[in-house]
Structures are given as C-alpha cells and as structure tokens.
C-alpha cells in the first residue's frame, strides 16, 4: 500500500462569522491527476490555500494535511518549515495571470528566484540559465528573450506558462492549480492544459486542478472531486462522474453544462432554483420570422471564408442580404491610438477592426465568436453608436449611424439596445432596480414608467417587489435578467449582447440563455450575440461569424461552421470547444 502524496483529513476552515469548509478529506497519490470542481464560492480555493499554508490571517483551520515525506502536519508546521516546502515539494499556479507576476521584475529573474531561494541551483547565473530552459520547457517561443521581458510584455497565456515554469522548477511532488485557465482564450486554454497534463505525467507529479469548468477536468484529470457549499459531495473517476453522477448537485451541474442537450421544449437543462419561474404561457410560441412588406428575404445564409486577405482582394461581404437588412456594415475599420505609453514613446496604433463588411437580416440571430482582443466589443460598440468607426459605414434599420449626431440618433437609441457581460458592472450600484430599468424610457410619466418597469421585470421572470432593491442584493443571474429588462423596455428591434453569459456560473448560464431565446422570439428581435464560447453561440444563433484579429474570417449557418470549419482558425476554435457528449465519450471508462 503506497502512501499518498497528499492526504487531507477532516479539514475545517472557519472565519469569525461562518464555517467555510465543513471537514473535507481526500488523498492524492503520486502521479495522480485530480480535478476539483464546484460552483463559485464552494470552497475550492480555500482548500488549495490551506494546503499551501497561505490562508488569510483572519481564517482558522483545523484537521490534518500531510505530505508524503514530510513528518509535520502542514496546518501546524512552523512558518520556516512551510517556506522550505513551498516551491519545492509543493507548488501552486494561480488563476489570474495578469496580476500574479511582479510587474516590475523581469520574468526570467522571477523564475530564477524560486531556485535561488531554495538553493537548488548553485548560483545566480546557473539559476538564470535554468530559468531559460524552463521557459523553453513550457514552450514559450524564444525563451532567452522572453526571460528578459517584463510581465506586461507577455500575453495572458504566456504569463500563465511562466507561472507554470516557476511551479515546475524544483520538480514538486504536488502541483496545485487554481483555475489556471479561466482568464484565457479557449484556444490558449487548451494548450496550457495540455502542457500541464504532459508535465505532470512526465514527472509523476500529483496534481490538484481546480476549475469550475467540467470540460477542463475531463481534458486533464483522471479523478474528480465535486465540491458544494464547503463539502466534497462526490469523488470518483472522471468518466464515472460525467456519465453517472451520483449526488444531485453533480447531476444538475453536468446537465446545465451541456449546451447541446435540450429538453422536449427545446430548452436547456437548468439547475432548478430560479427565484421566480417564467410564466410558461409565453414560452413555447412557435418561432416565426418577422416579416412585413419591406422586410428582407432571408436566404439560407451562404458560407463565406477569408482564407487570406491579400491587398487588392475584393472585400468579402459576409451574410449578404438582399433588400433591406436590419444591419449593414461596409468596410468598417477602427483604429485606436493607445495612450499612456512611455514618456518618450510614440503612441502605437492598434487595429481594433479592419475592413469588416457584413449584413444582418431582420429577425436573424447573428452570433459573433472570436478570441479575446479580436475586436468583438469594438464592433458591438460601433453598432450601438457608442463609438465611431475610423472608416466605413454602418446602417442600422436603414439609418446611417457612423458620424450621426446624438440628436439624430434619438430614435435609433430606442430601437437598438445592448446587454453587457459583467452582471455587476452593467448595473449602477447606487441606483434602484426601478430606476435602472426605467432609464432608457423617455417622455414617459412616472406612473406609466413604473407600470412598464413592472411588466418588463415580470417578463424576465422577476417579481415586482424587487423594484426597490439595489443591484448588489441580487445574484449574477438575476442581475443579468435586470440588464435584459432594461434593454427591452423600449421595445427595441435590435438587441446586441456582448458576452452576456460569460461571467455567469454554469448553473445560471442555462437559465439566462433560455430566457434570451424566449424573449427574442416573443419580441421578434434581431439579435447580435457576441461570445468567445462557440458552444453558447451554437445553442442560440442561427448564423455565426468568426472574427480573428479584427477581421471576419468565416461566416455561415452555425451548424455548418461548427460541423465543418473551413478556416484554420475556426477549426482550432471548434476543436478546443468540446461538447459534453464528446467529453463523456472521451473519458468513458
């Protein structure tokens, strides 16, 4: 019987106000890759920081944590002893690559430091050399140069690799990764995960991988722990848990994660805990495309790809609509001059968008997918006349909006509304829900406004009694409902959503997506929906445009693009977005 590398026994963590972890126990053997999943706030990070001995001073922990080969209990071991263990025997990679590195120190030095601290390399110079090797090991291009870079000069994925290099430097027995890829693009995420998997397998390191994304676990881990409200509610091989979850929470979690499986009414499975259910009547109105005399004829959208854009190529107009499209964008470019550079540096020009042309037909559900920084938000802002294009034209509902004055946009403003990503940031914390939702209304008296707000809140599934509350008194999903209510109160014809579900827990994401789908039908909206998650787009949209580096590279019916991606970037994107079924198949025992 081998001794496990990490053995946690009856770990309890409490703050002066509440118990946070209620006695959790688990083992990890050498070479074993264990995933830890659970909703936000379930105690995943606390578990990992307890092991590292880095709990905040205000918290107290009891129980035992033992590490193979270490005679002491980590919870009671003196700080000196822990300092010796951290970075050698056990190492940790944190979630936020943007802030986890010292911004004022070269990354090479930061990697080298972990060796000089523990004297695992004889001298500074050796440590530096080894740091470069490590950076090569985590597949940083040009490792010698990268070692001399400051963190801000690296991308998020690259920084996360640096963190990983640091963690692996002294060949730890145990590697803890706390949401190492949440901040990264799907494509980058896949690479980093693969790297972690490979590294630990090669060295027989025990791995604890924390995430809220079940797909990530399926990708890397053999075993999975499911955490719920400070307790481990399920512990088993990934394949078994994915296909036959035992605990009700796990069952719901897995159901809600699956965007490709719908119930008999075409709705996603949700965790059954909405505050107020939506009145079922409005739900299953059959989907119908809004048509009137002048409306565009929607042809089945044709597939188009930018393989490579040579100068002089005729611009491709994606999703071209004959007649009067709801949105028509031609040769749109947006450049930014980035300020706040150095004191003596010229402001560099950043291309947000380059020569984008496309149409959206009335009633269409148009998805836009692409990685971070590809220009999605820029496009959304321009469509809502919140930003002006550098060149090109944008017509929305027949009105040219590029360069239009605010006065001319008055009508446009009530016709086009937007829903944002951040459920907290998109609601003014100082305003009452009533005022937030009523904000877009104009020339409406108070009583009528109140009545309309109430009706709108009902429509998004919230009780009227929430009107006098402030945004912080709501959960993320509820907040997003409020945002949607605000966007719809003027009865717009076009709804633009920028990453409207990206910040939500899996469990709530499905609810909001269902709601959106319903409302688009009910109000006969033209929907432009931006996401970096192809799965979400696939569920919600009939047409998708893939955007990369400021250009649309591919556009067509969602299912087509998903099933047979043409552009290499799209292919990469699709392969990085596993579906639930595929996961289950892949990890099946």
């Amino acid at each position, binding site marked *: 019987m081998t001794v496990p590398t990490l053995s946690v026994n009856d770990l309890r963590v409490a703050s002066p106000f509440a118990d*946070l972890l209620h006695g959790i126990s688990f083992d990890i053997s050498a070479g074993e890759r264990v995933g830890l999943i659970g909703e936000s706030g379930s105690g995943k990070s606390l578990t990992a920081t307890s092991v590292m001995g880095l709990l905040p001073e205000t918290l107290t922990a009891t129980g035992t944590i033992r590490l193979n080969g270490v005679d002491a209990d980590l919870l009671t071991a003196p700080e000196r002893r822990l300092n010796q263990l951290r970075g050698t025997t056990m190492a940790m990679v944190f979630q936020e690559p943007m802030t986890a590195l010292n911004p004022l120190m070269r990354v090479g030095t930061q990697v080298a430091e972990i060796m000089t601290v523990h004297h695992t390399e004889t001298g500074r110079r050796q440590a530096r050399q080894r740091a470069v090797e490590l950076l090569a090991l985590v597949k940083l291009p040009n490792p010698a140069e990268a070692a001399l870079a400051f963190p801000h000069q690296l991308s998020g994925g690259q920084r996360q690799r640096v963190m990983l290099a640091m963690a692996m430097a002294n060949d730890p027995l145990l590697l803890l990764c706390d949401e190492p890829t949440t901040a990264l693009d799907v494509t980058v995420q896949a690479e980093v995960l693969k790297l972690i998997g490979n590294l630990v397998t090669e060295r027989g390191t025990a791995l604890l991988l924390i995430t809220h994304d079940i797909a990530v676990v399926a990708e890397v881990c053999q075993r999975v722990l499911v955490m719920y409200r400070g307790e481990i509610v399920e512990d088993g091989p990934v394949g078994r848990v994915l296909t036959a979850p035992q605990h009700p929470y796990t069952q719901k979690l897995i159901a809600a994660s699956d965007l490709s499986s719908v119930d008999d009414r075409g709705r996603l499975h949700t965790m059954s805990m909405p505050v107020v259910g939506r009145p079922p009547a409005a739900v299953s109105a059959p989907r119908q495309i809004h048509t009137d005399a002048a409306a565009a004829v929607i042809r089945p959208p044709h597939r188009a790809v930018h393989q490579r854009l040579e100068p002089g190529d005729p611009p491709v107009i994606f999703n071209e609509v004959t007649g009067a499209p709801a949105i028509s964008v031609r040769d749109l470019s947006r450049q930014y001059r980035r300020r706040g550079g150095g004191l003596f540096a010229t402001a560099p020009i950043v291309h947000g968008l380059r020569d984008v042309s496309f149409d959206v037909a009335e009633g269409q559900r148009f998805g836009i997918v692409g990685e971070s920084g590809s220009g999605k938000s820029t496009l959304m802002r321009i469509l809502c*006349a919140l930003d002006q294009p550098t060149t090109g034209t944008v017509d929305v509902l027949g009105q040219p909006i590029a360069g239009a004055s605010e006065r001319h946009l008055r009508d446009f403003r009530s016709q*086009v509304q937007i829903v944002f990503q951040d459920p907290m940031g998109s609601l*003014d914390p100082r305003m009452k829900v009533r005022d937030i939702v009523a904000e877009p209304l104009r020339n409406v008296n108070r009583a009528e406004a109140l009545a309309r707000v109430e009706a709108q809140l009902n429509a998004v599934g919230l009780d009227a009694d929430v009107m006098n509350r402030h945004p912080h008194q709501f959960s993320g999903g509820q907040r997003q409902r409020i945002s949607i209510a605000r966007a719809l109160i003027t009865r717009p014809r076009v709804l633009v959503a920028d990453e409207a579900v990206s*910040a939500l827990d899996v469990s709530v994401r499905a609810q909001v997506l269902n709601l959106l789908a319903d409302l688009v039908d009910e109000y006969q909206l033209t929907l432009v929906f931006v996401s970096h998650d192809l799965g979400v787009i696939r569920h919600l949209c009939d047409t998708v445009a893939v955007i990369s580096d400021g250009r649309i590279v591919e556009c067509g019916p969602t299912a087509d693009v998903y099933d047979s991606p043409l552009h290499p970037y799209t292919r990469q994107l699709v392969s990085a977005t596993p579906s639930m079924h595929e996961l289950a198949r892949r990890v099946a025992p």
Partner: protein
Amino acid sequence: MTAIKPRTPTRRAAGHSGRATLWAGLVLIGLVVLAAVVSAFWTPFDPEGVFSDSILRPPGAEHLLGTDSFGRDVFSSILRGAQISLLVGTVAVGIAAVLGVPFGIVAGMNPGRLDQFMMRGNDISLAFPALLLAIIFGAIFGAGTVTAMVALGIGTAPAFALIARSGTMQIMSREYVQAARASGKSGLFIGMRHILPNISGMLIVQASVSFGIAVLAEAALSYLGLGTPPPTPSWGRMLQDAQGYLFIEPLLIVWPGIAIAIAVLGFNLLGDGLRDRFDPRMQVNR
C-alpha cells in the same frame, strides 16, 4: 474573473478594524462639533472681551484651563475656536469640491484633447499651493478668515479634480455608463446620475482628509498672521499668541495644540475608516 459578493464575511472581517477607526474619528469630530454648537449659545466667559484683572491665571476651579494674556478664559476660547476650525474646514473643502469635482468629472468624461488640456491647467494650479495663494491673496484682499478659506479652497481644488477625474475614468469604463449612453442619455445626466454618486465615496474620503489639512493650514496661516484676526478666537491664533508666553505659562500652548490635534486626528481617522469602507478592493472578493 473576480466574483463580486458584497455581503460576504470577508468584507465584514476586513471592515472590522476600519470600523473602530471610523468610530474613533466620529467621536473626536463629535467633540469638536459639540464645542462649536455649545459655544454658539453659551461659554463660561466671554471669549472676546478683555479682562485686565484676571490676566494669566493658572488653571483652576474658576477658569478650567486658566486665562490668557488678555484675561480671557482659555476654555471659552477653545470652545469658540471650534467654530472657526469647522468653518474654515467646511468652506475650504466646499470650495475645493465645487471647483474641483465638476472639473475633474468633465475631464474624465472627455478623454483626449479636452482632458489633456484640462489636466495641463490642473498642473498649473497644482503649482500654486494653498499657502502660496494664501500669501498672495492675503496681500491682495487683506488677511482674514475669508481670504484664508478661499485660498485653501482654491489650493485644494486640484487634488479634488485629480481624484474626481480618476474616479470618473474608472466609472466611465463601467458598462452601466455604456448602457446609459446606449439609451441616449446626455453627458450631464450621466455625470449627475451615474458618475457623481459612484465617486462620492472617494470624494468623501478626500474631503475628510482635506478637512484635517485645512484645520492645520489655518493654524499655520494664523501663525504667519494671515489667518483669523483677533479678537475672534481661533486655535491657530491662540497658539501664535501663546508662544510669547511659552516660558511664563507653557500650558497656554498646550490647550490649542491639543484642540487642533483632536480635530485633525478626528478627520484623518474618519478618512481612514471611510477609505476602508469605500475601498473597492474591500468589496471585491478575489
């Protein structure tokens, strides 16, 4: 991604020491306010008269803190002096806020040329510190409480403008501002309804700290003869008067010194306490 959980134990725990600070500050300020209010209706003796027959009495039963060189009851003067300190602080901070905050908000809401231009202007006003203004204004308009308050106010305004601007820039990047713009709201509306309320926290912190600074500055100005003229009792003037009696009646310098320290300490503690409350990091649980 940072998850936002405003009502978590984390915040309460972090705010705990902040709360003690806050309360300590409020108690001290309460003392000063109490003195100011009470002295408006009653003081043991007239703090502005001259009593040739009771000059420089030591502290005792009749005169709690003794009398000064004019025979005035020091305790009465200290009580009445609270009025000037509060007045100077309030008016100076008020002027600074009224000038600086709209300036900062407008600059913050219009990134680019206008912002650059306004900030250069702000740099220039920063280069005229309050004390310099007080000296110049004192020469132009005559020294006195009003001049001192105006100079302190104008001198503090750039700091408010900077705070308001950086706060505004933060808020401007929030999506609810974008949402308001998308609903066609005017800049004025956004400034008043969204930005001002949301930066009020940091402004209050700044105001509280500036208040303390103003009380200290008034004392310094009085020392230079640019502050409140006699016989109106002000703590700074009392210090200035008392320094000539340092060897004869050292306590005379102690009392106004303590009074100033209490007021400044109060506002600083309040500022610290409020900062803990308003600090966005405290509200974000990472």
